[in-house]
């Protein structure tokens, strides 16, 4: 499958990885763990972008809503976040479907900018509502299994966060299976490729959009429930993930869901590479923004030439 031109690139990337493993193994380990988290949040957004063709700037905020719902469920009922995963996914699916029906559906035919501003408004409203209801205080739950660790030789590191990498792989290939092997998935794929054509052959485009949006919300909702095992929850916890998700999707190319995994690994490892040194620690956040701009510009320049 590899093209001839991409061989040197792949070799270079592999060489860099081997060098990092030998030199600073933790960079790779924590990089992969971070990549899992990024990818598993980005994949549902990629699904919406690929099929409904909406940049949902409220994506991270839906995860935030899920994280709060899971937090409430767990603290009231005293259950584990992993048990709350399914009820939370159902809650966010319904929530997402309502948002879709009430707002996004009305702007599907409007210019793209209206959709962008609309979802931006939804994001602000959700963050601020959380601010009013829950205040900006951070909430954290702690679980004993989070601190699980592993020793290899002299190296000791936390392994719990690998859960996110597993989740990301399951999501990526699960969705691939859904889109290519099931009837509903094939219909969704057809709608994504050509809504008008799909409508002509008898697919209910509107229903498919609603279904996919709700499905994406359910998936990111499940991620929100998993998220609280690892991090504290506060109203603006989701917003950085919206941008990161968009960046990863743009890197992978719209519609290329497994590609998001590769892009996340690149982002996660390079962020953790900078975090490994005291002098560059503060600059780790910039990696992502530099990546997003270079990817977008690179694509536009290549697009011009082609």
């Amino acid at each position: 499958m590899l093209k001839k031109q991409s061989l040197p690139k792949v070799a270079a990337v592999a060489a860099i990885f081997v060098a990092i493993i030998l030199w600073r193994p933790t960079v790779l380990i924590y990089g992969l763990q971070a990549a899992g988290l990024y990818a598993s949040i980005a994949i549902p957004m990629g699904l919406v972008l690929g099929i409904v063709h909406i940049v949902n700037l409220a994506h991270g905020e839906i995860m935030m809503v899920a994280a709060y719902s899971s937090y409430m469920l767990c603290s009231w009922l005293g259950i584990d976040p992993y048990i709350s995963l399914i009820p939370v996914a159902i809650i966010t699916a319904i929530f997402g479907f309502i948002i879709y029906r009430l707002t996004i559906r009305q702007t599907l035919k409007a210019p793209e900018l209206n959709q962008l501003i609309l979802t931006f408004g939804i994001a602000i409203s959700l963050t601020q509502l959380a601010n009013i209801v829950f205040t900006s205080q951070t909430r954290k739950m702690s679980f004993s299994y989070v601190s699980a660790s592993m020793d290899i030789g002299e190296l000791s590191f936390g392994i719990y966060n690998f859960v996110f990498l597993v989740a990301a792989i399951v999501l990526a290939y699960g969705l691939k299976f859904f889109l290519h092997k099931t009837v509903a998935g094939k219909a969704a794929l057809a709608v994504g490729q050509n809504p008008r054509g799909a409508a002509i052959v008898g697919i209910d485009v509107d229903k498919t959009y609603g279904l996919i949006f709700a499905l994406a919300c359910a998936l990111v909702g499940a991620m929100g429930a998993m998220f609280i095992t690892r991090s504290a929850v506060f109203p603006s916890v989701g917003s950085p993930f919206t941008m990161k998700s968009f960046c990863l999707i743009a890197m992978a190319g719209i519609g290329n869901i497994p590609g998001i995994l590769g892009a996340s690994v690149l982002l996660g490892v390079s962020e953790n590479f900078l975090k490994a040194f005291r002098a560059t620690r503060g600059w780790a956040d910039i990696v992502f923004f530099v990546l997003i701009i270079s990817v977008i510009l690179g694509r536009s320049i290549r697009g011009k030439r082609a």
Partner: protein
Amino acid sequence: MKLKASWLAAALLAVAAIILPAFLGAYPLNVARSIMTYMALAVSWDMLLRSGQISFGIAGLFGLGSYASALAVLRAGMSPAASIVFAVLFAGLVAFGLGFAILRLRAMYFSITTLALMEIFRIIMHNLHDFSGGPEGVVLPAILFNGEAKALYWICLAGLFVTIAASVYFEKSKLHLALTAIRNDEISARTSGVNIFKYLLIAFVATSMLQGLMGAIQVQSYGFTMPDTAFDANFTLLPLAMALLGGIHSTIGPMAGAVLLGVAAEWLKLKIPYGHLVVYGLIIILVILFMPKGLYGLAKDKFKKSHDNRVKGKLS
């Protein structure tokens, strides 16, 4: 005749704005200043929007302007007035350089890139500890006019007037035709011989300079800045909501929106100290769903309809 009447009204409003400090105390003047700052940002955002490019990076250039001004005073020993001029030129220069790269982008790619640029500026200022003061920011040795509220009001008003004048010029000159043509249909604009890149660059550089100007005036009036206040997302969010509510693609729309939302925000801040911004989010959603043309567009449509009816009545 109609044109003259509207110019007269504008002149009267300007005079009223100039003599306003005579009747107001320090607190209302402070509120007026923040409303004017947001108004100028809203108008400048709209100026670029008229070409169809939506920027999410208003706060980026605003913050860049305020840092350029503050650092010019602290590190280069410039006088505050000179530093404001320097900040405007600096913002313009940065926009000119960036413009060559990012004005190739369209739609969501342009928007996301402007948002990312804002974050990059913020992180740079956050991390250059020795030069920009890092997360704690910088404190200026003195505030402009020794903090005299009236003088600060007037300099802010001057910044606003420059912005409004630029916006009116954009509306009345040939630029208006070029930008509208680009917004409506870029390909047919190009085939009609409009130099798209040139006009986009003019609009981008001009709006960036105006945003830098407001940032510089802001930092010189308050005497300090830090990354989280200079690049506060509110400087993007509020102008956007104001322009949308008032009515985009006009000068008067964003101004009206700024007055309405600015006063409302001041009131809500007292009622709901945390999360009063939810109102802005909801306004953005409702305006997009129910009146995409904003208040000004709505009023214009109403006026046109009643005018048409009158003409029809005369004819029959």
